[in-house]
């Protein structure tokens, strides 16, 4: 009981690097153009996009509402991102602060930095996310669902062997 009642915050920093065979300006345009950004950022995965609004300027906000599809870990639950643009240097970097909420509960708050640098082959993208995950935000329901999924996966694995 004690462990479950603890209001823990877990901090994580991680980096993802990618290179794209195109100019930093074109990569940057995929961030500044709402139609382009919607395609790579909001669409895909096991969610339907319900809302996507962005105001691409320093201090501007962005809101994304996605809903988990049937058969996903949390069918019908909304996944909501609130983003605020902290810094924008065209062709060089975009810095955002964002929170993510699952239904009514915020699960994390982050600072995320996208850095674009030109290379011979095109553009390097370095993404750094510094996140605070709110452990207590998961609630019993999510822990339960998480475990159910693990158990179902294991059952499926066992059925195969």
């Amino acid at each position, binding site marked *: *009981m004690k*462990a*479950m009642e603890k209001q*823990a915050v*877990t901090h*994580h*920093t*991680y*980096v*993802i690097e*990618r290179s*794209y*065979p*195109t100019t930093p300006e*074109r*990569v940057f345009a*995929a961030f500044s153009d709402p139609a*382009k950004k919607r*395609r*790579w*950022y909001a*669409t*895909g*995965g096991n969610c339907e996009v319900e809302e996507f609004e962005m105001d691409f300027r320093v201090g501007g906000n962005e809101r994304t509402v996605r809903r988990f599809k049937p058969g996903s870990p949390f069918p019908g639950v909304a996944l909501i991102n609130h983003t605020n643009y902290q810094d924008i240097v065209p062709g060089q970097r975009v810095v955002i602060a964002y929170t993510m909420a699952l239904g009514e509960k915020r*699960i*994390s708050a982050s600072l995320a930095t996208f850095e674009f640098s030109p290379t011979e082959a095109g553009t390097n*993208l370095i*993404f*750094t*996310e510094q*996140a605070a*995950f709110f*452990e207590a935000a*998961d609630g*019993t329901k*999510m*822990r*339960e669902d*998480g*475990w*159910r999924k*693990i*158990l179902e996966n*294991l*059952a499926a*694995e*066992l059925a195969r062997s």
Partner: protein
Amino acid sequence: MQTKRRRLVPSHRVNIDRVFHALGDPTRRAMVEKLSQRPLSVSLLAKPLAISLAAVIQHLEILEKSGLVQTEKVGRVRTCSIKTAGLSIAEQWLDERRTTWEQRFDRLGDLLAEPDEN
């Protein structure tokens, strides 16, 4: 600044054969599901299961050895709980988060591979 690389294999990796064996039994799976909701005393855990207390204790021993469940005796009550070390939700979220961004950057690559429309 410290960066954390994705671990392909969790460092807490329990003996997978034991875990499979432990979860291969429907009664033990029911016990794990119950305990994933909240910790319970052995008697409360046993109550909805149509088996003897002795059988429950045997099942618990197997679950404990597999590293899925831990028990702790306080006074005369033995409490059972899920052992979440390494399986913490925060850890799962981090993995999920990284995967989400990786998929996004793959889609960005696909988008950039298309010719500009103008």
